[in-house]
């Protein structure tokens, strides 16, 4: 094998590693001839594609869900019960529907009735309702919430129709009536929701939210830089990468700002950081901790910088507030906490149709309706939690792969999963509890 010329060596190694993480459960049966890694997608010059659902407005979904939303926590139980009704057996005639999912949250009442906290909640909800991965949705409300369902619909310019219903519990006569009405509403939506076919589309329709704890020293070694290579490839294809976690970006904001395409974008980034300075003033937060440590600890700063590479190296095309729709393709920064569930919720609300999470420690994360691909920073972690991780980034440390090729493998994996191949977290069934709109305001 050592005698092989360079190209063959790569081909072989990629074959092995492709087998290794695509067929983890049969990894003892690695056969260099079974999985031919598709080198064509690696080339920057050719155009990468995936199999997606093209919606009427031209946006492209990677999954096809029906969502059950709540204006406030008071409707959470009903939402879960409606969604639970649609088990695999009851959905068996609708094979193109990936599931009926409850998107419940803890807020919506007892909060500020107007202003940014309510605006943020509303645009998060509507971002999910409008998401290309959402074929249909119902929105439940008790009826007396501070997040009034009718003013929510109006503010977000959402109109009810065959694929979007609202149900108000106080009008319908309580929990049981609402559950029954919700089930009936979704049953009426399922045939049309099922009437979709995947078709080959450009990778430019992919919007990938990238997640990694900034201080994760293991992820900084290979996982984050390799994920960055994948995002760079995606951006070159016309796609979008969404970087979040302001607390870990703030200490290196200047270098990110230097990549901003305009002074407006740069200024917006600075404004968000000023907002965080105030938000976390005198509090024992990750933001303050990381800012302080980055100033005095060079190695820590280096870790933050390496992990910021998870979003690649392309110019910064936009800075967005939490859950605002991403308008321009390319690399976007969205202001969000580092807390993975809150961060991913903002990314998905903004249009992310895939999530990539790199970590050096265990993670039970999953997300819906945009699935999460999980990258283990080390082979040891990958092996110890093989039901949870999709990609073993430790391969880059064994000398089997360099960062660039690992990045290309990640890109390939994004295309595969975007085309419908289930991620590990989807197989386990994680994601219903990870919808967490940022609770930014005061409770009352």
């Amino acid at each position: 094998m050592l005698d092989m010329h360079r190209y063959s060596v790569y081909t072989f190694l990629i074959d092995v590693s492709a087998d290794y993480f695509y067929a983890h459960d049969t990894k003892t049966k690695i056969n260099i001839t079974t999985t031919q890694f598709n080198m064509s997608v690696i080339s920057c010059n050719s155009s990468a594609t995936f199999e997606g659902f093209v919606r009427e407005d031209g946006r492209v979904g990677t999954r096809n869900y029906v969502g059950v939303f709540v204006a406030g926590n008071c409707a959470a139980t009903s939402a879960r019960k409606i969604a639970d009704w649609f088990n695999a057996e009851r959905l068996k005639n609708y094979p193109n529907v990936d599931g009926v999912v409850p998107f419940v949250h803890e807020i919506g009442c007892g909060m500020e009735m107007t202003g940014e906290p309510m605006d943020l909640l509303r645009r998060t909800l509507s971002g999910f309702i409008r998401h290309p991965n959402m074929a249909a949705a119902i929105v439940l409300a008790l009826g007396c919430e501070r997040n009034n369902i009718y003013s929510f619909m109006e503010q977000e310019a959402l109109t009810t129709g065959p694929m979007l219903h609202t149900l108000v519990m106080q009008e319908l006569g309580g929990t049981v009536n609402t559950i029954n009405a919700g089930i009936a509403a979704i049953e009426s939506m399922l045939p049309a929701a099922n009437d979709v076919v995947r078709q080959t589309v450009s990778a430019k329709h992919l919007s990938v939210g990238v997640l990694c704890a900034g201080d994760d020293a293991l992820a900084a070694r290979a996982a984050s830089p390799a994920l960055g290579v994948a995002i760079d490839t995606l951006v070159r294809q016309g796609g979008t990468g969404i970087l979040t976690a302001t607390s870990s970006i703030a200490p290196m904001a200047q270098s990110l700002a230097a990549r901003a395409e305009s002074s407006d974008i740069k200024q917006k980034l600075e404004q968000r950081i000023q907002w965080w300075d105030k938000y976390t003033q005198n509090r024992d937060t990750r933001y303050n901790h990381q800012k302080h440590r980055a100033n005095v600890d060079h190695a820590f700063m280096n870790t933050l910088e390496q992990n910021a590479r998870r979003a690649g190296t392309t110019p910064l095309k936009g800075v967005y507030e939490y859950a605002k729709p991403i308008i321009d393709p390319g690399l976007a920064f969205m202001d969000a906490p580092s807390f993975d569930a809150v961060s991913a919720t903002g990314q998905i609300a903004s249009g992310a149709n895939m999530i990539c999470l790199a970590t050096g420690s265990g993670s039970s994360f999953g997300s819906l309706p945009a699935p999460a691909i999980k990258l283990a920073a080390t082979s040891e972690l990958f092996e110890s939690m093989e039901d949870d991780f999709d990609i073993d980034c430790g391969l880059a440390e064994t000398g089997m792969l360099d960062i660039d090729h690992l990045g290309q493998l990640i890109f390939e994996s994004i295309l595969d999963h975007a085309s419908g191949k289930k991620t590990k977290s989807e197989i386990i069934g994680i994601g219903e509890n990870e919808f967490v709109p940022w609770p930014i305001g005061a409770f009352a």
Partner: protein
Amino acid sequence: MTETSSNLFIRLDPQDNVVVARTKVEPGIFVATEGVTTQQEVPAGHKIAARVLQKGDPILKYKTVIGYAKEETKPGTWMHSHNIEFQDVIKDYRWGEDFRPVNLIEPLERATFEGIVREDGRVATRNYIGIFVVAHSSATVARKIASWFDANRLSNYPQIDGVVPFVHDQGSGTERSGEALALLHRTLGGYIEHPNIAASLIIGQDIDRADIRAFLDSQNIVIGDTVGALSVSASGGTKKAIEAGIDIIQNMLVNANRAQRQRVSAEHIKIGLQCGGSDGFSGLSANPALGVAMDILVRNGGTAVLSETSEIYGVEHTLTSRAATPNIGKKLVERINWWLDYNKGRDTQINGRVSPGNNAGGLANVLEKSLGGAKKGGNSPLMEVYQYAERINTHGLVFMDTPGYDPVSVTGQIAGGANLICFTTGRGSCFGSVPAPTIKLASNTPMYRRMSADMDINCGVVIDGDATLEKMGQEIFERILQHASGTPTCSEAIGVGLNEFVPWPIGTTD
């Protein structure tokens, strides 16, 4: 002009200058008892002026100021947030001056119920196994372990009411020290130590269980037969952790099933008081009737926990005057001042504007809402003021500082030891809670009928003229004893309560 029965409007006090409509009243209706004619349509539960009001006149309901007239107003005018101005009112706190000790019923003569007596003497009203997460990241693991134990798999353990996931959104993005984390920890600790929790499993992600240990140490909880711990990383991932968790719980079932009910004194009942979706009737029927029931409970040695600080704002002087000591009264006012500062400049109810449902139901502002809301505590002396989720160890009427937001408020009360919740509503509520069940009380008959599967008790009969507050209060007390003894409430029958565990997210989220 149409003349009609005086029954259309309720006068709450001879000194009041507004009266409340029992039902929707058309314009141009002559109200004989008040000698006024309605100037506009008046929705049910809303108010009209009973006499001429000059600009700036205080509006009196229950002889209490709920705001000031915005303009000169003709008698019969519909009075609501559009013409009632919200302003600070001057309050006379009378620190403890009206305190009278409770006239307790002799221990042997007290009311009783069928409770579960734990080894250490605490008394439970239900018998659950709880699954807790130190941080949100283990939520799926907790839910999947709990959902394994369905009715079928628990069929051999009839004394166990269920295996329940208590998941929340905190822990991962929470501040690393200070009140936000302390509050989360004492909330979780309060549930684990709750008499209604027979056994618990605590789940974290750290491979070395550092996250679980930090929590356990903060609450002096020790792992043992009734408290298990599970690390997702050490288990080898999500799927294996779920399997391991199922095993741990399986081994707890036999012991948890040994619980037996026995007759005990009502002094062991601790009621968390709530109102949600209040309307103009709440303060006339459900809240004062519940107050009567709480006065009976307190005379029987039990505990009533009034909360929702922003919803007693404006009538706090009625509590400070009957505080057992001036200091207890001052603690209450301190908390209210904290809230005013915390909510400064925000569009929250303590600053006046109540929820759309409250407003539609006839409540002009937070003062009017508070006036009705505070009545559910009854007239007993105020014995103590607690922080959110702090363990309650005083009997009688006590106050716990919580937001008005129902799931957050109830979570604090249960963490404090409440073993039943009484929840009044005018607009209708679909609330439920676990492990302490919720009894829901309707303020009006039309809503009770509309939401009959959710409502346990109809206090609307007081508005209809079919029962006095005293009779209604006695009936509520009897129902409390029944539900404390195991009779399922409406929300338990429907299966509501697994999504209403919401520890107060008081800090920032990063």
